[in-house]
């Protein structure tokens, strides 16, 4: 019953989107406003239908209706209800359903908030949105159908992948990622809409697009940080980024979207980079689809998954379609995409933006190359390879250092042109700070050039961005005689975009500095201990194995070690790293224990033990400044929120 309801909702949505696309195109070409209005209606109805489908699936999961294929695949009577609900996005079919729902939601919100807008932009954009929705509905009734009937109905299922039911972040990271990923379809739809409606020459659409890109970008930023955090808290190797194809998939569109957020300002201010901006939007969208293809077709971990499933071909076909349509539209609009302005001077903000874009696209290129190379090598040479992390680090660390530098330079330079005098005034203090950091690092014994440069430019950029606030607050105090907090709030409120941007910079700088610190000063030690025995770790820090314990839970058995943390022989904390044995899988899933302080984490993972509980092998890792990565991520998102917040209600 619930199976029929869910499947029917998707089929009707599929029909509705086809009808909507036809109605919109017909209405636009024959100038029939009611037809366009009815196309908008289909977008809203689609959202309602997909909501029904998602609710039906969640209901089926919670009630353990194992006659439904997806429930039989990821459900289990032993799984706690919370993890049963979020197993909605725990496997291929459910994640595509969730994706379709988020896509339908974005489409409805975009169309609703812009329904009174004059011109063909929104109707054409709705055609693009409906087409993307249609693609996901086709997947849902075809290769990723979660509703297929299982007969005879099994009594129980295996439950979700243990890795996905082991941490609360599994409830947070995937939805954020989908909001970011799917959100990038909106700028793409606006670009296609502007191209089709012949409005690409006006700057109106880029303003609209920028705000939508910014909110999707904020979700994607948070999602990437949450993913790093999840990896840190669950996988047990003490790291947060491994240049894994799945991580890269989320990172590539983030890079191009970041480039767009900057180059869009150049277009708004100077009428330049129009063609480039459209290309960035299209690339970002295509990279999200490519990323979905990589992570959902199973092609990366094993190319053989390609032959068993057909979903990969659908994605490739869709990427090809989107690419061809975009190229044709861009080529047909070359007149409207011609640059109006030009660069006046090398030392100007536009130049910094150009370099920013150059480095960010270079960065994207490196990540794409490293991610896709194994596929190409296997397809053409028949060898199985992976591209090692050293490649990514070697290529991208210099780029990151350069970007840190630019993050300081950009905000300090005015548009158009600047004077030598201004340059000197702006850069003496930050340069002094940077030099001070290098000297300090040398004195403390640091010898890694890139690490030192990263710290130096991080300091440089923090000073530059902070000073923008200080200058603004001082100006307000002089002009209006306001108190510092009042001046600060009014300054930011009056220029949200600008000061939100600086705040996002500071978040990124914090993340970059924390990553540099944690990878430069990481320290780890491993030992096998008997209960009561202790091991020195570093300095006056040592750990002592107190006792081993075991626990039976419905879906798993848990084995834990109580470990005391000692500083100078005195107990300062207790950690309990665990190992979980899920009934459905051979491989145990670790739960490392982390003690966080602003200066860094103590991270303990239970590696192995003897079944009699008489010894345990522990890996203890000192992770300096890691909490600042998560904090920096929040600052980035806050900056984006400040920046994207509407200045005032627009009355239409």
């Amino acid at each position, binding site marked *: 019953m619930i199976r029929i309801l869910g499947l029917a909702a998707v089929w009707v949505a599929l029909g509705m989107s086809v009808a909507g696309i036809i109605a919109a195109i017909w209405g636009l070409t024959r100038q029939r406003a009611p037809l366009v209005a009815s196309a908008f209606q289909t977008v809203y109805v689609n959202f309602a239908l997909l909501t029904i489908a998602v609710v039906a699936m969640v209901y089926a999961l919670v009630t353990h209706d194992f006659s439904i294929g997806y429930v039989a695949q990821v459900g289990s009577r032993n799984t706690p209800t919370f993890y049963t609900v979020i197993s909605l996005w725990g496997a291929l079919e459910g994640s595509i359903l969730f994706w379709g729902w988020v896509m339908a939601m974005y489409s409805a919100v975009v169309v609703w908030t812009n329904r009174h807008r004059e011109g063909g932009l929104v109707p054409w954009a709705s055609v693009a949105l409906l087409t993307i929705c249609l693609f996901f509905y086709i997947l849902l009734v075809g290769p990723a159908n979660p509703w297929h009937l299982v007969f005879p109905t099994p009594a129980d299922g295996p439950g979700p992948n243990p890795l996905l039911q082991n941490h609360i972040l599994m409830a947070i990271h995937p939805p954020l990622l989908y909001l970011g990923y799917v959100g990038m379809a909106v700028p793409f739809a606006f670009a296609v809409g502007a191209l089709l409606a012949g409005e690409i020459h006006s700057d109106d659409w880029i303003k609209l697009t920028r705000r939508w890109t910014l909110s999707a970008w904020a979700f994607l930023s948070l999602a990437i940080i949450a993913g790093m955090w999840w990896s840190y808290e669950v996988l047990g190797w003490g790291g947060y980024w491994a240049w894994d194809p799945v991580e890269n998939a989320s990172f590539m569109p983030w890079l191009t979207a970041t480039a767009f957020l900057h180059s869009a300002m150049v277009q708004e201010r100077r009428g330049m980079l129009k063609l480039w901006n459209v290309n960035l939007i299209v690339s970002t969208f295509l990279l999200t689809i490519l990323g979905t293809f990589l992570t959902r077709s199973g092609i990366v971990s094993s190319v053989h998954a390609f032959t068993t499933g057909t979903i990969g071909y659908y994605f490739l076909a869709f990427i090809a379609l989107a690419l061809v349509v975009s190229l044709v539209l861009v080529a047909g609009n070359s007149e409207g995409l011609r640059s109006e302005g030009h660069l006046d001077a090398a030392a100007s903000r536009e130049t910094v933006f150009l370099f920013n874009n150059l480095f960010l696209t270079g960065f994207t290129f490196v990540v794409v190359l490293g991610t896709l190379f194994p596929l190409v090598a296997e397809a053409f040479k028949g060898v199985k390879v992976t591209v090692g992390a050293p490649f990514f680090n070697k290529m991208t660390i210099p780029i990151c250092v350069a970007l840190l530098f630019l993050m300081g330079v950009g905000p300090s330079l005015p548009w158009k042109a600047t004077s030598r005098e201004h340059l000197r005034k702006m850069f003496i203090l930050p340069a002094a700070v940077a030099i001070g950091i290098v000297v300090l690092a040398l004195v403390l014994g640091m010898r890694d050039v890139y690490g030192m440069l990263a710290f130096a430019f991080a300091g440089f950029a923090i000073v530059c961005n902070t000073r923008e606030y200080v200058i603004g607050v001082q100006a307000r105090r002089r002009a209006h005689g306001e108190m510092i907090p009042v001046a600060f709030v009014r300054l930011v409120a009056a220029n949200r975009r600008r000061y939100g941007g600086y705040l996002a910079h500071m978040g990124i700088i914090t993340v970059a500095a924390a990553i540099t610190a944690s990878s430069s000063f990481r320290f780890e030690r491993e030992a096998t201990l008997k209960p009561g025995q202790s091991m020195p770790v570093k300095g006056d820090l040592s750990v002592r194995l107190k006792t081993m314990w075991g626990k039976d839970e419905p879906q798993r058995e848990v084995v834990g070690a109580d470990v005391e943390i000692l500083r100078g022989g005195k107990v300062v904390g207790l950690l309990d790293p665990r190992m979980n044995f899920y009934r459905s899988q051979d491989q*145990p899933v670790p739960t490392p224990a982390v003690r966080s302080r602003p200066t860094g984490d103590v991270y303990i993972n239970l590696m192995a033990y003897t079944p009699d509980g008489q010894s345990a092998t522990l890996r203890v890792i000192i992770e300096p400044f890691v909490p600042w990565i998560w904090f920096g991520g929040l600052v980035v998102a806050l900056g984006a929120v400040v920046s994207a917040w509407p200045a005032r209600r627009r009355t239409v």
Partner: protein
Amino acid sequence: MTDPMNSESSYRPSPSRKPMAIAAIAVLVVAFGYLAYGGVEENLVYFLTPNELVAKGAKAVDRPVRLGGQVVPGSVQWNADALDLRFRVTDGSREVVVHSSGAPPQMFRAGIGVVVEGKYTRAGVFESHSLMVKHSNEYRAPVAGENHPDRLDKTLIRSSGA
């Protein structure tokens, strides 16, 4: 790193300079692409079986490799105090000696499939820095009364009072 302050030549707006700017960017892009491609070649990690590794001989020495195979029964020497592990990996035809420091994963045992990452040395020993047990995500129905060898003794669970 390029200093944007000193790159006036490539970004002058005058029409005569425009082709120069495009050429400069093109050169930059090509140089960057070449660097990146070289970097990939240098950092490729090959998946090899013991047979393939031995067949490559000197060519495989000191290059990052992922070696996959089964742990030869009776070959595991594990010193828990020194955290020193030595075993042989086989693909049925050839065997390679693997050495690693650090505790093996809980599931590690003779006969199990493993993937070790590291480098093959001249001495004919594979020095591994990471050891993964090959796991299957396949669902396996739990067998009633089954007692997994690696799961903690029920005695410990009972003594913890849970």
